[in-house]
């Protein structure tokens, strides 16, 4: 075979290799659904980079595999191969071409990135607080609603102003593609615009201690009108006197009002284990405590668990997770309601009433 033929053969292999690798990459690397405006830009970059990966990989591997098969040594051949030292022209070419390529990539990345982080018109601000191991969202433009779920109107640019209470966390919704760490003491911003109605999850992406795994929060992207309805429901202060304790308990649980993150942040009602025990079937349940003792969950125990969260910890859970200041906050809200509506309300009793309804 003459030399030229080798090169043609490898060129063919590179082309085939690139196409096959590219298809393979697309198949095994499916990006999650693209649900933000940013995702479009970023996904396009992903495609280009996959192409680059496929090409670079095929380029080198085609030569190496080809050489391995075609230039193998015959068993009885003890002669050395041709004495070729190198080739300065080639070396310069394969230094300079990649230089141009990476400068191009760098500039392109910078331009796109500037677009991603620049302020948009009509942005809606949401304050995000992360703490071990829950999220809380506050809507300063919507009468300071506090929510454990992130509700977002579709097609509205959002800017999150994020703070952490304790350690580093990271806000990430894979479907939105963008990510930003939360740094205690240093407010961080993150911009994106949700474009697809649906339910997603915030997944804390920075190791933040024991329960980093379960530091999740629900995200709901809803139509503008649904968002308005949600805001109204959350911000219109209900007349507590008209509600049953169970209804009120559910409100407290979701933190529909009051200035605390809801119990929902750590306790599920569907049996899922979060940072705290689930409330499903909690009332009357027998629990084993960390010190090995067992008890039945009743009013006294629930009351104590809220007033002194660290006193008796159920096995498998940790002390110092639950905020210790619920009593103060509850007292303040109760006083406010007494002032507004003239009714005396016991928030903990409401919660107990709510819990009693949570049976399978």
């Amino acid at each position, binding site marked *: 075979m003459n030399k030229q033929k080798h090169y043609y053969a490898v060129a063919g292999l590179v082309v085939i290799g690139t196409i096959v690798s590219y298809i393979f990459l697309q198949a095994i690397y499916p*990006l999650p659904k693209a649900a933000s405006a940013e995702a479009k830009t970023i996904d396009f970059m992903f495609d280009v*980079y996959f192409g*680059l990966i496929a090409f670079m990989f095929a380029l080198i591997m085609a030569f190496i595999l080809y050489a391995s098969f075609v230039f193998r040594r015959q068993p009885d051949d003890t*002669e050395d191969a041709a004495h070729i030292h190198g*080739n300065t022209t080639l070396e310069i070419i394969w230094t300079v071409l990649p230089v141009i390529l*990476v*400068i191009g990539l760098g500039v392109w990345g910078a331009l796109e990135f500037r677009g991603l982080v620049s302020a948009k018109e009509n942005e809606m601000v949401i304050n995000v607080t992360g703490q071990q191991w829950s999220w809380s969202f506050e809507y300063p433009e919507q009468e300071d609603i506090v929510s454990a779920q992130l509700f977002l109107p579709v097609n509205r640019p959002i800017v999150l102003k994020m703070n952490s209470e304790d350690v580093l966390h990271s806000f990430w919704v894979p479907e939105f593609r963008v990510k930003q760490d939360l740094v205690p003491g240093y407010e961080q911003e993150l911009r994106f615009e949700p474009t697809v109605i649906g339910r997603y999850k915030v997944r804390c992406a920075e190791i933040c201690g*024991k329960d980093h795994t379960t530091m999740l929060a629900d995200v709901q992207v809803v139509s503008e009108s649904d968002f308005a309805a949600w805001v109204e429901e959350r911000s219109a202060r209900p007349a507590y006197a008209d509600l049953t304790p169970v209804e009120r308990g559910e409100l407290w649980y979701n933190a529909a009002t009051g200035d605390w993150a809801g119990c929902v942040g750590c306790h599920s009602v569907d049996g899922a284990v979060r940072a705290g025990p689930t409330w499903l079937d909690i009332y009357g349940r027998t629990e084993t405590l960390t010190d090995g003792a067992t008890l039945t969950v009743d009013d006294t125990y629930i009351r104590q668990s809220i007033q002194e969260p660290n006193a008796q910890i159920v096995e498998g859970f940790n002390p110092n997770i639950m905020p210790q200041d619920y009593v103060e906050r509850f007292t303040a809200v109760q006083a406010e309601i007494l002032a507004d509506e003239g009714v005396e309300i016991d928030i903990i009793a409401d919660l107990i009433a709510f819990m009693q309804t949570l049976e399978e």
Partner: protein
Amino acid sequence: MGTGKIILTSSFTRGIIGQAVFAALGIAFINVIRAALGLEATLEPGVVFGALISVIGFLLGAGVFTDWIKWIGGQKTPLRHGTPAGKPEWSRYLNVDYNHKVIGIQYGITSVIILLVGGIFAITFRLELAQPGMQFLDNDAYNTLFSGHGIVMIASILLGVGAMVNYLVPLMIGAPDMAFPRLNAFSYWVAVPSAILILAGMAVGGWDTGWVAYPPLSLRAPLGVQLFLLGFYMNGFSSIAGAINLLVTVATMRAKGMSLFRMPIFVWAAIATALIQFTATQTVGVSLTMAVAERVIGLNFFDPVGGGNPLLYQHLFWFYSHPVVYVFVLPGLGVISELLPVFSRKPLFGYKWIALSSLGIALLGFLVWAHHMFVAGMPNSLRYAFMLSTMFVAIPTGVKFFSWVGTMWEGKLSFETPMLFVLGAISVFLIGGVTGPILANVPTDLHLHDTYWIVGHFHATMFGGFIFPFFAALYYWFPKITGRMYKESLGKLHFWLMTPAFWVMSLGQMSAGIMGMRRRIADYDPALGVANTQMLVTIAGLVIGWSVLIMVYNLVSSARSQEMAAMNPWRSRSPEWQIPSPVPEFNYDVPFEVVGDPYDYGLSDSEYIRMMPAPSGD
């Protein structure tokens, strides 16, 4: 002397006893002082002080300081040589020995043992990850295991690098030993108590911060994190001392005629590695000591509550920990460059370019650290700058790849086990490398940061840049080290099990990452659709584990066989293959002179080295 007695009186045993005694003394000392000052008893300060001096205890017990202490007293001490009288040859490896080959082998064996330990951690938590839901670990155990896995593996790599550099460089440049043999012993021995500290940290409560130990989390993590930080820190002495020793050795002890561009290419890799190690290691040392000090004496650097800045830690940490990834790979890439010409029977293509690209990678490596912090809260201007600088690393690395292709092209290739591992290394490092620029590009990194994509990326770079070449080196120089041949069939079996398994593992990890799997989680959401991939990754991890065990069996059993290997089985031109195996105590009985280029395969009657006539007067 009986075997038992030799082991019981060895430096290892004495070191461990010394470490235990000093740890106990340290703990007692602090608590007595605290009691005297009327402070309440707490565990942590004592443990930290105890850990700190326990390393000294180990070194004293092992006898690493003996000669230096005598020097301080003004005594001169001759360098001990050879096997001590009345003891078997193998006892040298359990004791403080100043011969670079012994030290290199000590490094190598320790590295493989530590690799197995880290691998067992990986296998354990991989079994947990095989299915969604928590099976047999809890969050704390999971966190400790993956954090321990990360740092133990990194320690294993650093030891492996030490093994290759120590054993090979003096042989390759024609030196009888390293420039500072006692310092060399120190470099190895200080790594042992450091590793013990890290493992002890896992035992006393573990920690949940990953191998990076970012504050404020590391300021609140369980006690184990202190031992981890200190162990990591102490290990730094090993790197710094070893690197300085290497640089001096290469600068002053090359054989006659060995100009810089006539050195075997591996030596260039070793130089580049040492340049990183002896500088950058200091900054991570500062970040780690600051974290320790913030925890035990309340100095404030990182906790924002007192005005500190968590990002400062990240900058100091990555200023070392990015360059250190090139410490992991440069020696490995050097092995690839060293072996390819031998198995291709063709000169190394573009020797100077490859040599200088190692320096290029090492120096560029200092300018890119903040690409680990793209979402950490840095100003945008820094994100642009580090995006561009990071991409530039692709260029010198590319030069190496293209030159390797050039070396193989039209060669006469043969595929013994070392060559297979070299080719495996090239392909695996390639996929690891080309998955780097997509991380350097900030918009795509916003999605990929802290996902399993990263996990896939760095396992590929570290396996391709270190594990595969290290295994290649073990097989290739095994006949040099032991004088015996490994079993080719088992070597091939190792390769053909490990390589496909590794591809499955690494591609699987990247796939899970892109689909939304975060790193450092004990359990994952089945809704992500990554459960099958995770199962595959676990199976692949097990296969890799078994294949490594095959290698261990192969090397151990072959070393004990009686059959001797040929003197130069690979027909290499490198100087170390021109002398008997195992290498005599002082390497070259007669010094050699370099009269040609190292890789002139195919040039008839070219010579690389010529043994000089024996010195007169003997």
